[in-house]
């Protein structure tokens, strides 16, 4: 085996197929987007691209629509981080107690994750329909809370949070599984020793359990931040960025600028922003969550 490892040519040969696919389908489009962001093009084949330097970035940063989309995506990230982590890991802790009948709940809670996101978005859209058409408004009617009824997806005050809640529903099961796997990996001996030392309940959770699953939580945080940052489908299906642009996030704005308004350069500039912001937020998260690894 060592003989193979020492032969760099063979190592490179085995790596080549995966490398070609990765470069072709991931690296090349990223580089191309960066290049496009310095040009203006109207989307017509044969029409040359015009080099405009940093103009697209200038237009992007001067646009009120863009800053609204940034504010929206930060709100979307915050809601998803808080609720998906709390619900996902909370359920994982409960399910890890392995009480009779708990197994079925693992499947039930994970079920929304395997549903196609478009179908889930449409399902929630039906729930949020206005007047007495939507299930939520019908429910509020039935329990005497008519005053809370609204057009959930057309009210600018509720639309983004309504979409965020739908997204939390689709994703918390995933983090529950990550959390559950991390909890299952904690040796029983450590938990028993901590109990002998007098650590139970919250003390045990914060001093033993949490440090032990910290690395998994870090993964969840990074996945949630980068996933929310590039989220497109659920917002596009439920609100299309509306009403009147109130729920646009950078990814939906990028789609509209490039593919509807033929501003391919500006669209590319927004995609570069998403890329850089995702990297920065992920890096920041990893840095903030860095702590000495726990070994047992």
């Amino acid at each position: 085996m060592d003989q193979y490892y020492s032969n760099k040519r063979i190592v490179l040969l085995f790596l080549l197929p995966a490398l070609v696919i990765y470069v072709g389908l991931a690296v090349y489009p990223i580089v191309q987007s960066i290049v496009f962001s310095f040009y203006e093009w109207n989307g017509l084949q044969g029409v040359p691209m015009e080099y405009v330097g940093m103009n697209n970035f200038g237009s992007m940063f001067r646009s009120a629509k863009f800053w609204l989309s940034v504010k929206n995506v930060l709100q979307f990230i915050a809601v998803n981080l808080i609720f998906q982590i709390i619900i996902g890991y909370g359920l994982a802790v409960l399910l890890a107690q392995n009480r009779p009948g708990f197994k079925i709940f693992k499947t039930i809670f994970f079920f929304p994750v395997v549903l196609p996101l478009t179908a889930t978005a449409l399902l929630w859209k039906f729930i949020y329909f206005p007047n007495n058409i939507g299930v939520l408004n019908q429910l509020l009617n039935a329990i005497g809370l008519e005053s809370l009824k609204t057009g959930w997806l057309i009210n600018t005050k509720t639309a983004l949070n309504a979409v965020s809640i739908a997204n939390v529903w689709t994703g918390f099961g995933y983090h529950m599984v990550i959390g559950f796997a991390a909890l299952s990996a904690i040796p029983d001996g450590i938990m028993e020793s901590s109990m002998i030392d007098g650590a139970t309940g919250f003390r045990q959770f914060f001093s033993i359990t949490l440090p032990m699953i910290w690395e998994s939580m870090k993964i969840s945080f990074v996945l949630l931040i980068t996933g929310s940052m590039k989220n497109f489908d659920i917002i596009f299906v439920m609100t299309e960025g509306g009403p009147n642009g109130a729920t646009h996030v950078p990814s939906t704005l990028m789609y509209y600028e490039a593919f509807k308004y033929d501003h391919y350069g500006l669209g590319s500039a927004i995609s570069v922003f998403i890329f850089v912001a995702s990297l920065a937020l992920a890096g920041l998260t990893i840095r903030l969550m860095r702590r000495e690894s726990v070994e047992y």
Partner: protein
Amino acid sequence: MFKMRKVLACLMMFALLVTGVAFAEAKTEITILTRWSGSDPMADYLDNYILEFEERHPDVKVNNISINEEASYNNKFKTLVATGDIPNVFYLPGIASLVKYAENGLIMDVSVLFEDGEWYNGFLDGAFDMFDFATYGVEGVYAVPFAATPEGVFYNADMLKEVGYEAFPETMEEFYVCMDKLLEKGYVPFAPGAAETWRVGHLHNQLLYKWCGTSKATELGARTAKWTDEDVVQSLAWLKDMNDRGYLMENCAGLTLDMEKTMFFTQQSAMTCNGSWFIGDITAQGELGFDVAFAAWPYFTEREENKGAVVQYPQNWCLKGGMEGAEYDATVAFVKEYTGRDNQTRVTAEKGTLPIRKDIDYSGIELNDLFMGCMDVLNNATSQAGDSFDYDQLSSMQDVTRNNIVGMLLGNTPEECAKAIQDEIDTNG
């Protein structure tokens, strides 16, 4: 060695034979991209038309890549254009938005087809005028219209009778009184499915042209008028006023087009502002249990000069630019035969759509009242225009105008709505 040569010679002969046959059987392929697919009422008609066209032209193969859903259609079209794989025949809504395609030679100047007098002279007068881009600085005519689509009000005649109207109100003043009476009876006058923003965009088109005249659309596109002009703001204010009075269903911004149709067909709303294409939807319902009639949108008494201003949306096919030989012949034949007298007569008879030609043979066609109503509106039109943004070369105007109109229904003032639209123009074009 000799045997080997014999085998090789046989193989070569066989190969020549096969390629010869292949060449002999090679068909000219043309691609068409329309919105007529899936559940669209015209989808089956198009499929049959293609089959019959291929029978008449055995050397032509038609690839139908039509998509009904708007966003998917736009994505597909833009991808095809960006990669240079433009369909031979395609539908592209708008007028001014076609100019950049014409400027870059991507669509064909169809005025060369006008030499065929039998085909050309049968079109309604002025049918090609919208697509003459001389006003945009591009010589030529760049699309072939395939249907006439006037828009007005389809209404539940039984409901209107119940509140005392045998005929549809002609003026806006009467219309307001009529809608008040409908509300008193507990009927919702309109339930536009404004989640699909074009539904309220179309309502505004009616009010804009009845208040300002159809020329306002071209003036806005040519930048000789502004959205913040007093008369344009007033046209927005009329729509806002209709919404505030409850003539539009509460929270209509969250209703879909399907909901709008269901509400009309189940008598939960009294009217729907729609084009002649809606006749197909009504026919598809079968027995409705109430009478539906069609009328022109009422006019403002103080703007009687705009009484005949009619909204008519362009229904047109563009042909790919730079075609030659068999591809050109097949594409032109496809479009000319579809828009020719025989097929237009047939599509009128089978689908109840309004023909774009004046030489239709109506004998043997059972024309219903809705069809005649649409024809009346068209015949009484003194001027026509499509969507207000059809005349604007800024691609974003379709979304920006409609989104801001929805925003106005959700609380913004007409002035804020007009300013937001004008800001888009001032920033981008």
